[in-house]
């Protein structure tokens, strides 16, 4: 187990797309343990994505279960996640381990359905809403080389870009 170094802006590697995971082996399990330890070591992050520690594979950890009154699916390891349905949108404030000392308003879908594999490679389906759905979208963006700063809308007004999500 080890706390891994977090890549931070303006590190260009954060902008690259990550590759799907193909082997669900012991080494993957070890990496997930390190990734979780890294998440817990930082400032109260509810999620972390593998590319944030320089591993460009489609792996995300999410856990919003420690927050009061927040609907959640518990501690989740999402491998090769794919959002298959989204609905609604809301503005919320986000920050990121890879962008220290900055927060900004981002529009995200309020309800999503997601397919992902677990660390053993089994396909799972999840329904998420609110804060958990926001966290999932934030982390999955990392897998596509996107940071929340790429989606920040004006902090001064609630003006929206009309099209926010690629289908």
């Amino acid at each position, binding site marked *: 187990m080890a706390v891994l170094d977090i890549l931070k802006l303006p590190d260009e590697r954060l902008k690259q797309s990550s590759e799907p995971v193909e082997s669900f082996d012991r080494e993957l399990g070890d990496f997930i343990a390190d990734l979780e330890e890294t998440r817990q070591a*930082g400032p109260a992050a509810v999620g972390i994505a593998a590319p944030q520690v320089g591993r460009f594979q489609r792996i995300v950890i999410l856990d919003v279960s420690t927050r009061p009154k927040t609907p959640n699916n518990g501690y989740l390891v999402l491998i090769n996640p794919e959002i298959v349905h989204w609905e609604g949108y809301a503005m919320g404030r986000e920050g990121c381990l890879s962008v220290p000392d900055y927060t900004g308003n981002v529009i995200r879908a309020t309800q999503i359905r997601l397919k992902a594999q677990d660390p053993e490679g089994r396909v799972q389906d999840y329904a998420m809403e609110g804060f958990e759905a926001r966290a999932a979208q934030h982390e999955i963006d990392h897998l596509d080389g996107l940071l929340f700063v790429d989606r920040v809308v004006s902090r001064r007004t*609630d003006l929206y870009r009309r099209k926010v999500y690629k289908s």
Partner: protein
Amino acid sequence: MAEWNLLTLVGADRPGIVARVTRLLCGLGCNLGEASMIRLGGNFTIMMMVSGAKPDDAVLAALAPVVEEMDLRVHLDPSHGGLHHHLAPNYQVRVVGADRAGIVADVTEILATRGFNILELESDVAGERDRPIYIMNIQGYCGETLEALDGALAPLAERGVSVDVSPVDVLIG
């Protein structure tokens, strides 16, 4: 020159003000920190944190030609602030009501009694000319509960002002 200064520039809005001013500051070796720039009632307003090795007089002198050409009003004030002093808001307050004198004072007085620290406030007058409505959006930090804030602001509803307080959850991921 103090380590950081707050530079304020205001003038009739036109294209090119930001480019001219910031290029000049760059030439002086100044660094820019946080800035707020927005058009207000036909004016363009700039408030920004500026640091650099040059004395205040040198900065003002260097800005003088642009200030004159673009008819800007300028202030340069030493500031103790610097970088990395961000506070994250935990509440958003949205206010809408028929426009009348005193809405801002009414709302913010109540917030102040609860120790609410306003980090950002923007407001506008919308609606029809003969029936204007006032819209205000505040983000800030307060140690009290949502229920306490709602309760404190409730009397405003009777005076025709709609106030909605919602928590701002900052997601770190």
